């Protein structure tokens, strides 16, 4: 076996996994704080990226566009809390899950209604080409952009960690995630907190949208990356930020290795199901995912 090629597959898999993690993070945030499995996260990614790119194409400065998009996502987050979650409070999880699928349709339609259904290109200034130095010296192709995405993801996770660990709101978020009632009892206003969570998830969606948009173009198919994040979630556990990252790395690396080294023997295309089967195998050992919180069940 050619070790350089193996390293290349492994590293590109890990970096692809980071991209999945970016999407998975949004799911985790919302699930943690409100117990909602938000299927609309993919649509939010699409919505954010499309809004951003349309603003830039209309001549807006990059950073202003980021801020405006962020503001839009906050408004969307608050609106979702107000119009969808609040009336459905105390409903079973499956109902909320369904509601977020409905939300997916609304967001998809709204985004295309506002900005049209054309795909857009998005350049962040980091070309998606191999790092020359590595290619020359070690004959290993690692994309600059992937490394950049990895750094961004790292920064995002670090930022979220600091936010969660040290700030008053962050602490409140974790408190709400742990125990709604007790959080209410100490005077944490759930609704505001939920609105904040959705807004933060909107921010994460924007980052993910920028990354994925720069990679594949900003188009409707961005909504499908939610499907890529699902095995990451079950592997890592729905409630764990760390799980989203580790899960992403494992899924990314193993699916690439499987496709490259196993795929040719079975006709290829195994990427479509391999991550799920892998996650399933993990679940059989740990039913709540790698880092998920163990649920205590008593009769």
């Amino acid at each position, binding site marked *: 076996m050619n070790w350089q090629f193996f390293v290349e597959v492994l590293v590109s898999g890990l970096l692809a996994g980071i991209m999945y993690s970016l999407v998975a993070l949004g799911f985790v945030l919302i699930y943690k704080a409100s117990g909602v*499995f938000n299927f609309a996260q993919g649509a939010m990614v699409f919505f954010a990226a499309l809004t951003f790119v349309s603003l830039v194409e209309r001549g807006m400065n990059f950073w202003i566009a980021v801020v405006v998009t962020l503001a839009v996502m906050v408004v969307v987050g608050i609106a979702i809390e107000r*119009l*969808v979650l609040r*009336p*459905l409070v105390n*409903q*079973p*999880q*499956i*109902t909320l*899950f*369904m*509601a977020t*699928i*409905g*939300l*997916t*349709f*609304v*967001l*998809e*339609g*709204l985004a*295309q*209604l506002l900005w*049209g*259904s054309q795909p857009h290109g998005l350049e962040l200034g980091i070309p998606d080409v191999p790092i020359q130095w590595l290619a020359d010296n070690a004959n290993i192709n690692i994309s600059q952009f992937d490394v950049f995405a990895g750094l961004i993801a790292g920064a995002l996770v670090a930022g979220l960690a600091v936010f969660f660990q040290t700030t008053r709101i962050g602490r409140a978020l974790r408190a709400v995630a742990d125990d709604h009632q007790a959080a209410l009892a100490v005077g944490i206003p759930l609704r505001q907190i939920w609105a904040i969570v959705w807004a933060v998830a909107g921010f994460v969606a924007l980052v993910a949208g920028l990354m994925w948009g720069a990679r594949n173009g900003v188009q409707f198919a961005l909504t499908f990356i939610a*499907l890529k994040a*699902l*095995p990451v*979630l*079950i592997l890592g556990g*729905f409630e764990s930020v760390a799980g989203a990252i580790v899960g992403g790395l494992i899924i990314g690396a193993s699916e690439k290795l499987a496709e490259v080294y196993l795929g040719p023997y*079975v*006709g290829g*295309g*195994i990427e*479509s*199901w391999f991550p*799920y*089967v892998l*996650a*399933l195998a993990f*679940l*059989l050992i740990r*039913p*709540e*995912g790698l880092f998920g919180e163990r649920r205590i*069940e*008593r*009769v």
Partner: protein
Amino acid sequence: MLYREAGQFKTTYAADQQVFPIRQDRIAVAALLVVAFVGVPLFANQYWLSAILTPFLILALATLGLNILTGYAGQLSLGTAAFMAVGAFMAYNFALRLPWMPILVSFMLAGLCAAAVGIVFGLPSLRIKGFYLAVATLACQFFVLWALQRVGWFTNDSASGVITAQKMVILGYTFESPADKYMLTLCVVAVLAVLAKNMLRSETGRKFMAVRDMDIAAEVIGIRMMQTKLLAFGISSFYCGVAGALYAYAYLGTVEPEAFNLDLSFRILFMVIIGGVGSILGSFMGAAFIVLLPIFLNTVAGPIEHLLGITLPSGLMSNLELIVFGALIIFFLIVEPHGLARLWQIGKEKLRLWPFPH
């Protein structure tokens, strides 16, 4: 006034245990069946028969299948379309390789194959629960479609992976016209629905519900977890498999594996939730709602444009439809999280009192 059970006394256990204990219900069901079996084929036009009623019945059957699993046995699944695909492709293979076999037998065997697949993918449910299980069933969804595309045997080595359903011949009669196909579908669906209704009233059904409501407690009182959960997966997948075979034979005719994609799984889950979790009637209502709503929105869009005298860009209309569809789903979930079946029940309760307020 009319819907009132006063005066209907049950003198035997049998009478008390019948499927529809209230006379008005029996009359209503009988009337519905008469309409479905006689009225519809006589009066409905071809469009309604082949584009709406037949798929509605087929999807209702699949919804019923998922409802047995999700609504009664409490196991969430996102792999429904995969079980349907197994049904469709296996029915094709049975009919292709054993041409002497009656087509209905092929359907049943295809259903059994789907049940077998369902049981295999139901195994994780012994350990995994809730959303983790739901996402795990996605493995089934993707794996089955991949296998159908990859293994030439399933599609009789068709280069494009497409199968064309054979003619449905029963006792020398070929079911070809939309009315024929509708009738065949209706018969299958009606029989399976009655069977489901009875099964869910039996010990099996009660076991399912015990597992749904609290599996550990159910285990403690002696219900065998493995047997029950796998049975639920098996029966549910059987229904889905038969629905899939009908989807291919009575509806689409020619199908590629992609016709059974995740989207379809989600739509069927929608039908369960909107219709009412754990309700057979709800399965039908949910299917009707999800089948009809987009068509309705699409159909009224044109006249509305006409009426307002404006021409909206096509993209706008389609996107609006999408938004309205999503919003209506959320709206229904908010108004009645327990589904249309619950609304119907409330309606019936009110009808019992009507026209007197108390």
